[in-house]
Structure formats: C-alpha cells, structure tokens
C-alpha cells in the first residue's frame, strides 16, 4: 500500500509563504515606524486625533455592517440560484445589474433613505454584494461534473444540496469574493461620505482638504492602511492559506 503524501504542501511552499508573510510585516512595520517618527517630529501637530478616530470608527463599522449584510445576501442568492434548475436564466440579469456604476445610483439611495447612516450602509451593500455573488455562482457553475454527480449519488439532493454540498464547495469563492468586496466597500463608504458629508473618514478628509490641514488626511490614510493590513494578515491570509491547502487538486 502506498503511504506517500502526494499533494501536501511541500517545505518549499511553506518557505515561500513564510518569506511573503515576513516581508509584508516588515513593510507595515516600516510604515508604522515612519508614522511614529512623523508624530514625534510634530508633523501631525494640527491633527485632532479624537475627530479622526471617530471618523475612522464610523467608516469601519459601516463597512463591517455592510459586508455582513452583503455576505448574507450574496451567498444566499448565489446558492439559491446555483441550486435552482432555473438558475441559468438569472445570470444575464445579474450581469447587467452588476455593470451599473454604483455611484450613479446614489441619488436613488438618498431619495429612499435620506442622508443617513443606513443610506451609506445599503449603498455599500449594493457594491459589495456583486463580487461575492459572482464568485460563489461561478464556483458552483464551474464545479467538476464528477463532484456534482458524487454529491447527487450519495444523497445530497433537494434542499440538502445547499448546506452539505454547495456551501462548502463555495467556501474558497466566498473568501476571494469577500476580499474583493471589502476593497470595493471601502471605496463606496468613503465615497458616499465625501458626497453626502455624513460623519466618517470620507467627510473627514474632505474637511481636512477644505481647511488646509492635509496632515489629517495623511494620518487618516496611514490609519486605514494599517487597519486594512492587519485585517488582511490576521483574517484573510490565514483563511486563504488554509483554503488553498485543503481545496488543492
């Protein structure tokens, strides 16, 4: 009997990942050190840290909320459409909808929800949902025929197909769709805040620009950079690595 580990990650694979991981942390440490030096030199003396902190908090929590709503919505719709025999009819509809420029629709969101927190959140949902939905739908539609047949033959039929087959099958796609969706989400939330002047990082940098305190905008950008990096390294990178290892052919 053969006991070899045919497809397990090799030592070279581990080395490459370790080097990438170390390099990313080095770059981020450099950014933080430079920021600390600039703070020590008084470059950010004009920045009102409390206001900046509150602005970043508002933007981040809107994004997180929008992400979870979009995740639930995108995955649910994609699973139902992927599961349904009529699913192919929905593809062209989604294709047209996702091509609509989201910022062109912002007046519609303002009309229905006003200049509110909810407006920004649902506007962000409308942008985040598409990469998640399409990633999951594509994963379901491009699944190997044999795997689909195995699921059917061994009993994952009817509603059971969704939790026991389609959902775990879509896991890597949920991750990649989420990463792209969140990147788009940052843009949507900050853009909507700039347009509507609702308190948040967008409104903060717009205000900083108007009042000429560009250090505020720079400090804010560094802070967002650090948040994005930390989330990427501590949440997405380990999940992606685990998914790549497990779902390897």
């Amino acid at each position, binding site marked *: 009997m053969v006991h070899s*580990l045919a497809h397990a990650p090799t030592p070279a694979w581990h080395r490459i990942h370790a080097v990438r991981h170390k390099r990313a942390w080095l770059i981020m440490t450099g950014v933080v050190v430079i920021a600390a030096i600039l703070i020590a030199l008084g470059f950010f003396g004009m920045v009102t840290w409390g206001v900046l902190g509150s602005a970043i908090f508002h933007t981040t929590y809107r994004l997180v909320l929008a992400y979870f709503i979009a995740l639930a919505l995108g995955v649910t719709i994609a699973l139902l459409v992927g599961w349904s025999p009529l699913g192919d009819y929905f593809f062209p509809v989604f294709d047209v909808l996702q091509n609509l420029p989201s910022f062109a629709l912002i007046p519609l969101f303002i009309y229905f929800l006003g200049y509110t927190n909810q407006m920004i959140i649902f506007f962000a949902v409308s942008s985040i949902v598409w990469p998640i939905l399409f990633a999951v739908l594509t994963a379901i539609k491009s699944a190997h025929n044999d795997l689909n*047949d195995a699921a059917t*033959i061994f009993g994952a039929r009817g509603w059971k197909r969704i939790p*026991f087959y389609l959902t775990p099958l879509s896991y890597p796609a949920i991750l990649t769709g989420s990463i792209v969706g969140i990147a788009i989400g940052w843009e949507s939330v900050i853009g909507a805040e700039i347009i509507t002047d609702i308190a948040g990082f967008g409104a903060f940098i717009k205000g900083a620009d108007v009042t000429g305190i560009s250090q505020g905008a720079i400090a804010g950008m560094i802070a967002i950079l650090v948040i994005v990096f930390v989330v990427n390294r501590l949440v997405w990178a380990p999940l992606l690595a685990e998914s790549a290892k497990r779902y390897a052919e």
Partner: protein
Amino acid sequence: MTHDHDMTLVLSRVTARFADEKKNSIPTLKDISFSLPKGSFVSIIGPSGAGKSTLMRIILGLMQPSSGEIIRNFKRPAMVFQNYALFPWLSALDNVAFGLRMDGAGRHERERVAREKLREVGLAHLENRFPAALSGGQRQRVGLARALAISPDLLIMDEPFSNLDTITSEALKSDLLKIWRSYGMTILMVNHLIPDAIELSDQILVMGAHPGRIEKVLSVDLTRPRDTRAATFFKQVDILTEDIRRTLE
C-alpha cells in the same frame, strides 16, 4: 431461462442524443441493450467517444435517455470515479460517512461504519487526512470505501485504475475482488485495459463509438480465482483481445 427480476439492470434500445452548437441532434448512444445479472461483475470496454460515461449517468438516473426502456432492480447504487470526486472539505472519514449522513444516520453510527470501511480498504490510519493530503491510490480507496459505506447493490466504477500506478492498481484490484465476493453486489466497470477486464469480469461489453453502441458481449470463461500468470489466462487474453480488436475495426 432468466427473468428480469434475476437482473440488477436491464436496458433495451436505449438511445441518447445531445444538441450540438448548431442545435443539431447528435446521437451519443444508439440502441443500447444489455442486462446485468444479480451479483455479476461486468466490464465495458470501448474507445473514447463511445459514450461510456453518458451510459453510466443514464443508468444512475443522472441523465434521461431520449428513448428506450430501463428496468432498475437496484435500490442503492454507488459510484467510484476515475478522478476520485472526493469532497475536498471533508476528511477521509467524513467523506466515507457522507452517504450515511445524507441518509440521516447519527454521528456515532456513521463514524463506526466509515471506520469499518476505511479499515476494509486499508486506510484506517488515515481517517483524519483530507483528500489533498492523500496519494492517488489512497484517494481511490477512500472513494471505494465511500461507495461501500452505503451498502450498494449496484457499484458502478468509471475507469477506477486509470490514474493509478501499476503496483497500486494491482493491490486495489485484488481488494476489489475480495470486496465483491464478500458483498455479493453487482459491479459494472468501465475499463480501458483488456487484461484487467478479463481478470475481473464475468462478461465484457464491447462498445463502438460515434454513436456509442454495444458491438459485442463476450463471456470470460475462466474459473475464479484467476491466476493472471497462468498460461490459460494469457491465452484467454490473446483470444479476447483479438476478438475485441476485430470487432472495433
């Protein structure tokens, strides 16, 4: 005289068509008629494009034929795939237990059966491994254990040895024969190696291509257990190989 109820499967004049890019109806299978006696081991041999996989899918009810009649006197079919078709998100144990889980078996019961089947195929020590960390031979054994776990009365195998090295496939063939004898189920196997088909089968269905059709049904008149190094075996291989070659010319 044999009756339909002595048969696990009876196909009469089964035809399958598919529409090409120009919407022309192309026959993939034409007038397929054969029957599988209960407890028999039957192999299908044929060139690429003979529609062997389509035939398997029709037998399992995964595809509907365009015309013809199928009598299915089996309740629990299972399949072993050429490309294993294991669920990458499940461990070897959970892959084997998948069918039982879909049947509603409790965790304790399904894990007990799955462990027993993994032991039968010699992989008890690898129950926690995920498919990505198994060799081709090990994956195929997990695939076989997954099929056995649901106690099938018809086991369909689609070129189960084609991705395996000679030593692994020899070991798996010997295990398969032991399992077939102890379970008493009917096995229908697609194979591309004539000596393998002769070593394992009671009957060989020779299929021609474009469209797929049964050209000949050959009986293997060797007593079991078959000694693959005996002169009689080589002689039988020679005779049947020549017969199949002439049939497919």
